[in-house]
């Protein structure tokens, strides 16, 4: 069975999703889904180990050779992404049973878990496959289930938010499909490795240029890169808490993966960074994104909105590391993928706990919560510190490597701006801390209890992971380094 680990990662949750409908008991389905997610988590650890010790795993589906059939190709980058998604997926799901009791009607629970599993299947599929059309198919699975999950939000505005996301996401997916179609037309293949070989001959043609542009724009829509981010804040703010915590930690990461995969592996670094001024374009968009989104976050009154805008800003950091186009830069991006997933899932899950207790995440409602929900609020504070990039948290590690990369590349102004951007994060995190700790509890509200342990356990696992990986960076740095070196074709 060890040879089949890569396919099991995708097929097990894929088969579990329809099986949910047979169980049809909220708690039973939850346990089942949790078990499946935990399986994928353990599986992804094995995969990572296997990749780190013996190199890229290649798996031919249906037993057909690569360009004719579809192949799975797991290298360090894929394994890292699989680990992030399955870890967050499992931990967040742990709180789901408690959370959706208050946010969803009983009749939708089974469907919710089914959609959740489909969404995670889609993401696994995207980051496992070595075939560009297969990417599109699984992108559809993850997006469709994502739209439905967001639309399940209790607030009526969730429907409108999901609709906006649907339109933007569909345009993005269509662009990606057009890009893939054009590539197929010029090379006659859909396999990534094969494409990389065959594109070299035809990469001066206008068709390949058009394909490249369509793919980049399509992926950036999914990535919520400024100025294509408009769908994100409302989608995150009005979705059920669990969905927000899961999607915020994973969805944009998958898009970053696609961007890296297409530019580095399929088109090749030289082509990607010479045909369009990608480097300058992305650094500028990243910086503007950081400042615009962080400023917007400062003025929002819904805490979910605040962190959603902060997510857009964090995408800016990732894209800058990527655009520097050095091993250190890429490494910083990959580290930030991992670290940001930890921070945002912890933060949004803590907001889910607040939602569970007081039924709202308006900033004004946070008054006095510092005393009443001390553990939840402490988690938000630590998560916030991590977001700012304070030493001893994961946020510091990724910012540190990003600064190193920027300075290495001699871009001093960018380094200064990055630091200034972090200051803005201090402001919006401080607003929450101030309201929660230094304002008296709202008059006329009964004392709020601390969140139940089903919330606290996953939140604190994530928070402790935030601190642990901020101190002991061996695992994350090692994997990120190996991944970025293999993308640059350097053999360690």
């Amino acid at each position, binding site marked *: 069975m060890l040879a*089949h680990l890569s*396919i099991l990662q995708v*097929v097990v949750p*894929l*088969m579990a*999703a*329809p*099986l949910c*409908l*047979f169980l049809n008991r909220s708690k039973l389905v939850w346990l089942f889904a949790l078990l499946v997610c935990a399986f994928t988590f353990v599986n992804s650890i094995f995969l990572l180990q296997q990749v780190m010790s013996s190199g890229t795993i290649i*798996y031919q*589906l*249906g*037993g*057909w050779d690569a*360009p*004719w*059939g*579809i192949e799975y190709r797991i290298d360090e980058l894929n394994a890292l992404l699989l680990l992030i998604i399955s870890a967050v997926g499992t931990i967040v799901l742990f709180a789901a049973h408690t959370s959706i009791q208050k946010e969803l*009607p009983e*009749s*939708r629970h089974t*469907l*919710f878990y*089914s*959609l959740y599993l*489909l969404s995670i*299947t889609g993401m696994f*599929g995207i980051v496992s496959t070595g*075939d560009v*059309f*297969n990417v599109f*198919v*699984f992108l*559809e*699975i993850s997006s*469709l*289930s994502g*739209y*439905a999950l967001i*639309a*399940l939000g209790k607030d009526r505005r969730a429907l409108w938010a999901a609709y906006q996301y649907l339109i933007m996401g569909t345009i993005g997916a269509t662009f990606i499909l*057009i890009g893939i179609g*054009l590539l*197929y*037309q*010029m*090379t*006659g*293949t859909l396999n990534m490795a094969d494409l990389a070989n*065959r594109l070299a001959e035809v990469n001066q*043609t*206008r*068709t*390949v*240029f*058009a*394909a490249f*542009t*369509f793919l980049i724009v399509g992926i950036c829509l999914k990535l919520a890169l400024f100025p294509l981010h408009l769908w994100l804040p409302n989608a995150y703010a009005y979705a059920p808490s669990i969905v927000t915590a899961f999607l915020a930690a994973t969805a944009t990461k998958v898009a970053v993966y696609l961007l890296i995969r297409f530019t580095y592996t399929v088109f090749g670094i030289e082509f990607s960074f010479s045909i369009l001024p990608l480097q300058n374009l992305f650094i500028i968009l990243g910086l503007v994104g950081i400042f615009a989104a962080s400023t917007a976050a400062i003025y929002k009154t819904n805490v979910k909105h605040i962190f959603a805008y902060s997510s857009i800003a964090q995408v800016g950091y990732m894209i800058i590391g990527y655009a520097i186009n050095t091993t250190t830069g890429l490494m910083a991006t990959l580290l930030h993928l991992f670290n940001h997933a930890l921070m945002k899932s912890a933060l949004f899950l803590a907001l889910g706990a607040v939602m569970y207790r007081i039924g709202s995440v308006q900033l004004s409602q946070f008054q006095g919560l510092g005393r009443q929900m001390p553990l939840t609020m402490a988690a938000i504070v630590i998560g916030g510190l991590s977001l700012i990039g304070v030493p001893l948290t994961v946020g510091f590690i990724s910012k540190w490597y990003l600064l190193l990369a920027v300075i290495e590349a001699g871009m001093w102004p960018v380094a200064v701006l990055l630091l200034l951007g972090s200051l803005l994060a201090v402001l919006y995190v401080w607003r929450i801390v101030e309201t929660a700790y230094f304002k008296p509890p709202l008059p006329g509200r009964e004392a709020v209890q601390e969140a139940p342990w089903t919330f606290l356990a996953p939140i604190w696992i994530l928070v402790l992971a935030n601190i642990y990986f901020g101190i002991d960076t061996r695992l994350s740095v090692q994997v990120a380094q190996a991944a970025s070196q293999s993308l640059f074709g350097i053999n360690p």
Partner: protein
Amino acid sequence: MIAIAIVRTKDLLAVVMLTGIYGLLSASFFVVLDAVDVAFTEAAVGAGISGLLMLAAITMTGRTEAPKRHKPLLALLVVFVTGGMLIYGTLDMPYFGSFEAPVHQHVAPRYINDSMQEVGVPNIVTSVLASYRAFDTLGEVAVIFTAGIGVLSLLSLPQRRRSYRLDESKKELMHEQHMVVRIVSKTLIPFILLFALYVQFHGDFGPGGGFQAGVIFAAAIILYAMLFGLDTAKRVFNQTLIQLIAAIGLLLYASVGVVSLFSGVNYLDYNVLADDPVAGQHLGILLIELGVGCTVAAVMIIIFFNFVGRREAQQDANEQNSTELNNSHELKSTELKSTELNNTKQNNREGE
């Protein structure tokens, strides 16, 4: 021309009909390009079922387009840039139908020359879809399943006991009027179902397969539901049953792969399913096509039933409101409502 007409027309009913024509035209376009399988799908989906679903949606939203308040100049610009980019992209494409085009030179020759020995299915499209790239097709089935679950999770109503008395008399009246349509379609439906089965099992040899068959099958059921009322159709296919059929279809497909895994070969490798590799391929394709057919048909039915169920619930609610107002039996009805509420509360408690 039709595309422009679709954009310009304000009457949504006309728009739906035009999209049907558009679908049919693109289907014939695909036939001209010798892509009969795609044409078949387009005819069944684009010209057939999607129109039905849009009609169902219109009955809920109203017939005319809302007047626009702003001129979307930015959107127009984006459309022009995209269109320009597409045209720019075609400039260096290989000539249409050219033998040297990479599409015909790289992977295609093996499909054309060897698929008969390797897969043993005369329809090359089927052998590519269901064997060489079977995993993509599994993904597509999962997409359809996701769509079905998505619709269910957003639109499904809690199952309720309806007041049949009132409904039935109303429906009888409505359906009496369509006597001719009813009788004609009653005789047609068995043939449609038979044709669906033919398409399902003949997919190996001619154009067709699970996707098209599923859609045709669903179309027959939907036709029945439209003419004889949702409740009559639901007596045959109740909500839970269709959901399970959709799930079983996907599971059947995925399990075929699991069987290969347990036989010690890669996922979805059909060669080991029977003693002879080609027979194994046949069996595998037959099974997965069946899975595709089940899921597609069930999901289409789920989507339609839920749309229409929503609408009927809306109508019922409206009628109840209006009767309440007209007859000024408000007292009575509130009493009724409160007892109902109590009942449901009790039920809930019992359920817990």
